[in-house]
C-alpha cells in the first residue's frame, strides 16, 4: 500500500472518528447504518443455510430494509453513543466473519 493511500485512509478514518464523536446519530444515519447493513447482509449471505441463489435474491429484497431499520434505530435509541458503537460493532464483527468464512461456492 502506497504512503498516499495510507494517508488518505488515515484522513478518512480520522474524519469519521471526529464526526462520530461530535454527532453520533447523524454520522450513524448517514454512514454507519449503510456500512453495517452491507456487511451484515454479507454475513447473512455467507452463513444462512439456504440454497445460495434463493438466499441472494431474498437478501436483495431484505438488505434495503435492514438499512432502513438501522437508520431508524439511530434516532430511536436514547443514547447517541450507543447507536454509533452498536453500528460500528456490527460492522467490525461482520467484517471479521466475512474475512474468515470462505465464499459458499
Amino acid at each position: 500500500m502506497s504512503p498516499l493511500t495510507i494517508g488518505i485512509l488515515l484522513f478518512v478514518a480520522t474524519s469519521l472518528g471526529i464526526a462520530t464523536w461530535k454527532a453520533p446519530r447523524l454520522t450513524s444515519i448517514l454512514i454507519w447504518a449503510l456500512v453495517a447493513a452491507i456487511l451484515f447482509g454479507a454475513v447473512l449471505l455467507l452463513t444462512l443455510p439456504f440454497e445460495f441463489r434463493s438466499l441472494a435474491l431474498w437478501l436483495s429484497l431484505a438488505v434495503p430494509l435492514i438499512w432502513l431499520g438501522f437508520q431508524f434505530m439511530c434516532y430511536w435509541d436514547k443514547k447517541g453513543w450507543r447507536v454509533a458503537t452498536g453500528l460500528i460493532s456490527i460492522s467490525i464483527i461482520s467484517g471479521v466473519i466475512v474475512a474468515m468464512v470462505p465464499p459458499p461456492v
Partner: protein
Amino acid sequence: MDRARHLRNYDLHSWTGITLGLIVYIVALTGTFALFDNEIKTWEDPTLRVAIADETPPINDVFSNWVEETSAGGMELEFVRLNFPTTYTPYFRGFIQYHDENDKHVNANQKWHALTGEPLAERGNGLSYWTLNIHRDFMWPSFLGGRQIGRWLVGIIGVVLLLAILSGVIAHTKIREEAYSMRLKRSQRLKWQDSHKVVGLWGLPFYTMIAFTGAFLGVIGLVSQLTAAIAFKGDIDTLIGAVLGPEVERTGVKVQMLTADEIAQMRHPESNAAPRSYVVRNYGDETSEIDIFYAPDTELSSVEIISVNGATGAPITDDPFKEQPLAGHFVNAMSPLHYGTYGGIWLKLLYFILGLSLSVITALGSMMWIERRKHGNEGSKSEAFYNRLGYFNTGVIMGLPVAAISIFYLDKLYFGAEAGRLAATGSVYLGVWVIGLVYAFMRRNDYSTTRELLILTGALAMGIPVLNGVTTGDWFIAHLSADHSAAAWVDLGMLLCGVLTVAAGYLAPSERKTKRRPSTKIATSPEAAAIPAE
C-alpha cells in the same frame, strides 16, 4: 412513548422531509409522467400510431442478413436479440453485441416496419426518453459519474421516503382521529397540515409500496451487489456464476440456427401467447441457447422466459439455473408493482392520482416547515431568510410541472437534427424549470406564484391536443376508439388534467390571509419549539 423519543422521531421525520423532501417531490411528480411512458411514446412519434397484424409477417431474411452484414460474419457475436412488434412498439427491432477487430464490444440496433420489413429511420430520443429517465436516474450527467449514479440516488431517495413514512406514522400518535380531521375553515397552515396527514394516512399502503419498490429498483445495483461482492471478496465472476449459472463456452462447431420466423411461431405451452422477443447466446454454435420472452402468465411479473436449444428448439429442462425460485418471483414483481403495468389503464390512472397525491404531500410538508418558521414560533433565522427559502421551494415545486409539459411542445415544434433532439429536450426542460424558479424570486409572493404557475401549467396541458392535431393531423376525438388510440387518450388526459389544474389555480388564494410573526423568535426551549402545532 417518552417525550424525548417522540421529539427525536418527529425531528427525524421533519428533517428527512425538509432536506430531501424536494427531491422526493421531483421523483414522485416525474414518476406520474413516467407511468405513461408507452402512451407518450405513441404520442410523440406518429409513425407508431399503427395497428399490428395478428400473425407476425416473415422477418428472418431481413434480420439474419443484417446480423451477418453488421457483425462482418457474426462469429464473435456476444448476443443477438430480436423484438417482435407489439401494440406500443409496432415494429421489429434487432440488437446485436459483437467484438470488432480490436476486440472491443460494439452494439448495433435496427428497426424494421411491422408489415413490410423495410428499415425504419431512427427517431432521436426526446420527450418519452427524458420523461422516463428523469424519474429513473435524473438523467445524471456523465461528468458527475453517469446514469448509474443517478439511479442509485433515486434508490436512496426511496429509502429516505420509507424512513419518512415510518417516522411519520410513529410521530402521529392519534392516527385514527387524524385520518378524518380536515379543518377547512381554519388557518392556511392547519389546512395544509390536515391535508398532509389525511392524504398521507389514506395513501399509506401505496406510498410504502412505491417507496420500497423504488428503493429496490434503485439501490439493488448498489447495496445488494456490494453485499454479494464483499461476501465473495471481490470475485465478481464467481458470484455471477453462482447466481446466473456458469457461462457456456463455444465449441466452434457450427450449426444451422432456428430462424426468427420459426421462433415467432413458438407459442407459450400454457398461455398460448406469442413471443415478444428472444435473445440468442453463442449464435451459430452448437452450444447456442435461445431465451424466448413471453408476456407473463401472471401479470405481476415482468416477463416469462422459456429457454430452448438454438439449433433444435428443444426446451432446456435440466438446468437448475433456468428455474425461477420463489424469491425470483418477488424480485420480478418489483418493476410491474412500481410502474403499475399489471392491471391496464385504469390501474395506471389510480397510480397517477396516488402518485400526484404523494407529490402534494411532500410539497405540503416543505411548505409547512417554512410556514411554521416564517409565521410560527419555530424559526431561528430572519424573515428574509425564510422568504428566500419559500421562493426557492415554490419555484422548484411549481416550475417542474410547467417544465414537464413544455417538452411536449418542444417535441412537436423541434426542427433540428434528430441526434440533437435529446439535448434540446433537456435544455428546454431545465431552462423552463429555472425560469419558474426565477419567476418565484421576482414575484416575491409564494401564493401568487403558485396560483399563476398552476394556471399556466393547466393552460399548457389544455393546448396539447391542439398541438398534436395541428402538427400531425390526428385530432383526438376521431381516434379514441381506433386500434391505435393511445395518443388520442394522452390528448384527452392532458385536456382533462389541464382543466382541473386551471380550476385549482383559479380557486387558490393569491396571498396569505393573515400575516403574523412573533417578535421573539424562539419559544421557551428548543424542545418546546420542535413540537408540531396541532
